[in-house]
């Protein structure tokens, strides 16, 4: 499944479109940046509450497939600007982290 297909299937909002054709094989949920650096895999969907600039750096370094902000959280514009410059996809999910992760898991592993 690609990031774009996941977006359509779950009706996620695309705040910044990086590579929507990227393949997604899994995801990682964490708000601790070092946890993501240590354990997330390339192409993962990263589900988080963090919405500051360093998220873009971590996503770029780990080659994250898409960052999903939960509960409708919106980053400041400097974050979306930077994400666009770096080609990092940022999505917004209206539901909680638990529900968002559950829906993404179901879509990836039906």
């Amino acid at each position, binding site marked *: 499944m690609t990031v774009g297909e996941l977006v359509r299937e779950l009706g996620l909002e695309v705040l910044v479109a990086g590579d929507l054709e990227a393949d997604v094989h899994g995801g990682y949920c*964490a*708000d*601790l*940046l*070092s*946890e993501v*650096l*240590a354990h997330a895999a390339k192409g993962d969907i990263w589900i*988080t509450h*963090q919405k*500051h*600039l*360093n998220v*873009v*750096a*971590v996503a*770029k*370094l*780990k*080659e994250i497939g898409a960052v999903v902000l939960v509960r409708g959280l919106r980053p400041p514009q*400097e974050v979306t600007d930077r994400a666009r410059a*770096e080609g990092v996809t940022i999505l917004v999910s209206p539901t909680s982290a638990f529900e968002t992760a559950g829906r993404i898991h179901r879509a990836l592993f039906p």
Partner: protein
Amino acid sequence: MSPRIPPVFRRYWEVAPKDLDRAGFVSIEVRRALFSLGVEPEVVKRAGIVCFEGEMNLVLYSEGGRIVLVVSPDRVELLFSDRGPGIADVDLVRQPGYSTAPDWARELGFGSGLGIPNMEQNSDELKIHSRVGEGTVMRATILRRKYDGR
């Protein structure tokens, strides 16, 4: 470690203290530089993680410092040096979960006490020298395993 081979690339960046808005972007520049030099993707990945954690240490805890990237045919080295305050117990900061991060940093997802363990995990060698009142120097070495010595 094997005898040193002369570096082919060297660059440094100054890192301002408490400047979280810029924090993390030296790591992205390091990543870009390594890719453009043709460094193996696995080595770039490890160097990126080491650099991010080292950069965050400089931003969050130091009074400012510098990151030096040295790329040689057989290794990538990252040096982090700062102007203080220094670490009293270096063994303690190597322990997973130990952190002196203030609450504001923890709320942003820092201070899990995994920074230095992550740096160790992604380096072949991590040396830390510190003196309270003077500063800290860390040297991370990442070996390029494909290098065959010729």
